[in-house]
């Protein structure tokens, strides 16, 4: 599970990076917003991976990690923008 957890963290970092390129990270997070987006993606992927391996099977857990991570970075970004009407990190 250690290797899988590291893979999920890596997947989450990549998804966080794509979310930054998609301008989903809220500008309210400041100059280190990019780091927050990467960390959010990684933590959500790790949580999604563990959830997937618990509810489904290890073989599907990585895919659950991907969609949970995308969901997390997207929802957090959209909520932050709607609540504060602030632009996203460019």
């Amino acid at each position, binding site marked *: 599970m250690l290797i899988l957890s590291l893979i999920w963290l890596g997947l989450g970092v990549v998804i966080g990076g*794509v979310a930054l390129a*998609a301008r989903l990270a809220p500008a309210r997070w400041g100059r280190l917003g990019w780091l927050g987006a990467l960390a959010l993606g990684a933590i959500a992927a790790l949580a999604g991976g563990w959830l997937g391996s618990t509810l489904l099977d290890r*073989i599907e857990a990585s895919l659950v990690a991907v969609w949970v991570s995308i969901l997390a970075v997207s929802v957090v970004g959209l909520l932050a923008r709607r609540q504060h009407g602030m632009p996203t990190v460019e």
Partner: protein
Amino acid sequence: MQRAQVTTTQPSLAPARKRRGWRRWTALVARGALALAFIATLLLTVTPTGRAGVRAALILPALLTATEPPPLLIAGDPIRHTQRSIASQDGPVYLDIYAPTMPPPPIPGTRQGLLLISGVGDNRGVPQFVNLAQSLARSGVVAMTMTTYTLMGYTLAPATVDAVVQATLALQHTPGVNSRDVGIVGLSAGGALGAMAAADPRIRDTLGFVLTFGGYFDATNLLRDMGRRALMVDGKLVPWQPDPVPIQALANTIALTLPGADQSLIYSGFNTINGLSLSPADQARLSPAGQAAYHLLVGDEPDRVAANLAALPPQGHTLLASLSPSSVVAQIHAKVYLLHDQSDIYVPYTESRDFAAALTRLGHPHEFVEFSIFQHVEVKSGLGIGQTLHDGWSLYQILVATLGAGA
């Protein structure tokens, strides 16, 4: 002055606009990629077909390369291998069970069970066969292989069908396995045994599916093809040279219906070059029925195949019928998957064509795929990419269909 302003501000605005435009496009592409990845991974994990697709995608490379690929080793379940034996009309049934060490996940709450029958010979240690069972187990399936002394002795017997039924029942009662989500996967002669077991009243209504790969449909037709060393394909005879293994398996089987002296003579003629060969003197010592069986097996009287078949003892005809799925095809209730390689030198692919035709006539749900990347049931080496992709896609679809119910 105005002219000077225009010439100084215009170049600085254009790159900024370009940058903004480029960023907008990058953001759109990234959002599109995230949306696609989200939808794809969500569908692949929340729908049964999607989960079957994921499992099939990880198992397929294992089948084509005959090794467990790293993604399956890393992402798959840790597995446990246990052995046990159960009683049957064919004596002890030796079971090798490859199962995930973890209990079934809450979704779907149970595991699928697959009974793998490798055919004649002791194949329990054959790397490709073990690889298949391990790959299935890593993907979350409880894979059970079975054999008997009869099969290990390269012989087919009607009692072995009971052994298959007993093994299926044992798998259906394995903790964590969904009893209605158990399928039989029969390779080579194991396919025929699996199909006959699928017609047995004890399991025919609870069996998920039966898959035969390189199996025969009618043992008499198989012996006929062997006798004329040719196959009837679309109304034309096509030369066919069988491997020594099916010759010996059929010889062992038919010899049981011949006098004892014939049996000893036939067994003494076994070899690894052409399967069976006796001196003219030994041939003359065989009974008329023994001589008919011998000529059918060695294929040296292709023009007298019908007469030699007719000369077999009545018990021989009864035995061949009782070993043929063709005699019980109407009693099979589960869906049937037929896989066969066109260059098979163990069992002619026309056997699966006949099986598919019979199922079509009966209106029975089935799928039939002919391959060209296998030799009998093992993957050939040095295959072209086009051929591998074409047959690999067909194999993937069969995997998704068979793993679908359990996902």
